[in-house]
């Protein structure tokens, strides 16, 4: 019951702020709303029992990516300037597209997903298990993707510095 109450509060916060984030006129404000959405997502991970992912979400998304966003907004916007939106008919088309998608997927979820689940109470995922799975080379273990991600991160750092440096 406490789970449900916490979930509904988080869900309300996330839906309201994600809609505000894409409709707000002021870009720094929509970045802040995005931060609230990301923190709400971290709360959902905690609620589902994935504590490690909660920490990663807070550190990488709410910490790293949001700082990058604020930094970029302050570098590229004059203070107090409002965001321009597309022309009116483009907005209507965007609204219709997203509502159609929402209705379609909502219909599928409402009628089909119900049949396929049972929530099995499991103990919390141990960090030791995560480490073994991340560093193993057997079936269902992820050393190779992990190494690829590390190379990708390195390439990203080099690429970002190359692109953004002053000539």
């Amino acid at each position, binding site marked *: 019951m406490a789970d449900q109450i916490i979930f509904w509060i988080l869900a309300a916060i996330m839906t309201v702020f994600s809609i505000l984030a894409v409709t707000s006129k002021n870009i720094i404000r929509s970045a802040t709303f995005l931060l609230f959405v990301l923190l709400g997502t971290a709360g959902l991970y905690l609620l589902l029992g994935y504590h490690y992912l909660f920490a990663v979400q807070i550190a990488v998304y709410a910490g790293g990516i949001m700082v990058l966003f604020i930094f970029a907004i302050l570098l590229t916007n004059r203070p107090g300037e409002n965001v321009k939106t597309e022309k009116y008919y483009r907005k209507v088309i965007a609204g219709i597209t997203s509502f159609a998608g929402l209705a379609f997927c*909502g219909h599928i979820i409402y009628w089909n997903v119900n049949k396929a689940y049972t929530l099995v109470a499991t103990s919390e995922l141990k960090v030791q298990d995560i480490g073994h799975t991340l560093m193993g080379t057997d079936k269902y273990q992820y050393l190779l993707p992990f190494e690829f991600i590390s190379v990708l991160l390195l390439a990203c750092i080099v690429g970002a510095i190359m692109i953004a440096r002053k000539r």
Partner: protein
Amino acid sequence: MGDLLINFLSGPVPIEAYLGVSLIMFFAGVYGFLSRKSLLMILISVELMLNAADINFIVFNRYLYPGHMEGFFFALFTIAIAACETAVAIAIIINIYRNLSSVQAGELNQMKE
């Protein structure tokens, strides 16, 4: 009224509720992607969509395959890739601003100044 509320709130959170939240987040992202001109707003919308996909991975993993960790690692790697993508995209946006002094998507009509 009280009984109804207690009935509604008893038991675990239904999977549709999680999927509904991520659905609304995803289509809010789609709307922002299509209706905004600023590149930074487009990037914020993409972040919303990626985050909704992460929630779906985690929820399906937890509810349908609680003994496995595939969804968990997919979400973990998605977060890492999203961080990479944002860093490079913001570097590109800053470079565009330096060259054209504007970050509106409609005004980017040349490859080189």
